[in-house]
């Protein structure tokens, strides 16, 4: 166990180092001088040079890399070039939009997917099953930004039930804030729910074919009794794995949706950071997201290993 664990931790650390080097180098070659961008079209070259010094952009490459990495370790992300506030503060603010949005979307997608998947599995090949599974095929194929546009067309422009974008902030009250997140969450949830419903259905069908469920049915349980008592619980393992994957996708992958709805979230922060050449923000946010994904993968690996000793031996 401990050898496996140590190996995993080492590979985790190596991954993080590799990721930080890749991110740093990629952003070093991005064309466009942040200082020139900040001072704009009629800027004086002297002023630009003065600002470059102020921002620490004239230091050598290696020095800047280590300044950045050691800063990250101490939780100091540096100061945003454009906003002139600590990056950590910006990220914390944005997380309060991205995180609730991801959770909201995940809850919606689960609320849709579970019943749909279960009904489809319980009534396999019925009209309901065929219709619902056909609908999920569409759900998977719909680009979420296009779906978002349609939602705006119907619910904001025509019906005027929701605003088409922006976020009033949690200070405006929880109801207002959740309302602003509703259309984006729906747009994000639909494709996720479709995938989840399909996984739920096929996973249920698999477990329904397992011996212990057959035995249960042989003992006189009806199909839906067997489904509820035995299959659903066991089918949850693959479903939860997918859910875990979807969560990190939702957190990082909401960039486009945040842009469609103009939500001040992490994704939009990165996008703005790139166009405004606020590279210190981009570096830190991307690193944070990568760190989150690597960490989740690591924890899942460890969890599986604890649950299934065979895996451990295989790796060792």
């Amino acid at each position, binding site marked *: 166990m401990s050898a496996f664990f140590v190996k995993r931790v080492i590979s985790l650390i190596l*991954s993080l180092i590799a990721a930080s080097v890749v991110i740093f180098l990629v952003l070093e070659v991005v064309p466009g001088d942040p200082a020139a961008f900040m001072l704009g079209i009629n800027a004086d070259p002297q002023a630009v040079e003065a600002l470059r010094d102020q921002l620490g952009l004239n230091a050598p490459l290696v020095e800047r890399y280590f300044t950045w990495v050691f800063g990250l370790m101490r939780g100091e992300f540096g100061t945003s070039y454009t906003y002139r506030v600590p990056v950590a503060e910006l990220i914390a603010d944005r997380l309060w939009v991205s995180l609730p949005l991801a959770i909201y979307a995940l809850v919606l997608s689960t609320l849709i997917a579970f019943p749909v998947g279960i009904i489809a599995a319980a009534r396999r090949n019925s009209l309901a099953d065929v219709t619902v599974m056909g609908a999920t095929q569409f759900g998977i194929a719909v*680009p979420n930004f*296009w779906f978002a546009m349609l939602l705006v067309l119907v619910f904001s422009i025509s019906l005027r039930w929701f605003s088409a974008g922006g976020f009033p902030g949690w200070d405006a009250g929880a109801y207002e804030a959740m309302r602003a997140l509703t259309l984006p969450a729906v747009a994000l949830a639909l494709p996720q729910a479709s995938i989840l419903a399909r996984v739920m259905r096929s996973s249920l069908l698999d477990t329904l074919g397992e011996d212990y469920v057959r035995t249960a049915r042989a003992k006189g349980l009806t199909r839906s009794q067997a489904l509820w008592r035995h299959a659903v619980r066991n089918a949850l393992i693959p479903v939860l794995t997918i859910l875990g994957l979807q969560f990190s996708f939702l957190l990082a992958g909401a960039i486009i949706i945040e842009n469609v709805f103009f939500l001040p979230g992490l994704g939009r922060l990165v996008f703005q950071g790139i166009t405004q050449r606020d590279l210190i923000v*981009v570096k830190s946010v991307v690193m944070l997201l990568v760190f989150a994904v690597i960490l989740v993968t690591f924890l899942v690996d460890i969890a599986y290993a604890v649950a299934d000793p065979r895996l451990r031996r295989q790796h060792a």
Partner: protein
Amino acid sequence: MSDAPVVLERRDNLWRAALGSRSLVIGLAITLVFVVAALVSLAWTPYDVTKLAIAIKLRPPSPEHWFGTDIFGRDILAMIMVGARTSIAVAVIAVGIGIVLGVPLGLAAATLRGTLGDEVIMRGNDLIFAFPALLIAILITAVFGPGAVNAIIAIGIFNIPVFARLARGAALSLWTREFVMSARVAGKGRARISIEHILPNITNLLIVQGTIQFSLGILAEAALSYVGLGAQPPIPSWGRMLSEAQTMISIAPHTAIIPGLAIVLTVLGLNLMGDGLRDLFDPRLRRSRL
């Protein structure tokens, strides 16, 4: 597998099964419509997509313009046809990159199983997986400039670990099989066995995964061009048509709805085709569905 008549009979069954699979037939039909539209657009389109006609901009669908016209008065049907070309080309090449680079890596990892080489390859894959795909695509295009080629690279990179993992997993189980064992006993090298015995036996898997990655590639290309990082004007692309139409949605909804439907149908067709193929190649699953 070794004697010819058996293979022939199997192939015969396969065809019959293929024609009997509803999702495969429907999926293939939809996909073909778009592929044919893309090919036809090379030689002919109803109107020239490079010519603007501002006087007739944003016209709704009519007998002259079946899908209406866009903000510059271009024919949307023609734009969809040429856009299909862009989408399909980007997605196909990106899948190609994934297969050409990913499969050899996966096979090599399987041969090197348990060694440092395997570990390095698989950790490298994990590393790529750890990057949020769209973010990296945005970074790549920010560095090298927006354009179809960079979109292909950005999407292609994320296909590499997919195929590498698939190939490694499948190859690992094949290495324990008898026919591979006997090849080893016969003195064949590891690389040769990978090419001669493993690769042909994972082709079906690769085709199924390729179809899925193809459809994901179409979606990714649409997303990239939607944020302005895909094919550049004047080359039409579905994603960019959508972003241009976004502000017109209240005055000319057809400009936003039609390109979106094109994306949905293409992806739907490919997904159905992928499902059909998987059922076809995996008799265990087929049986469980009956």
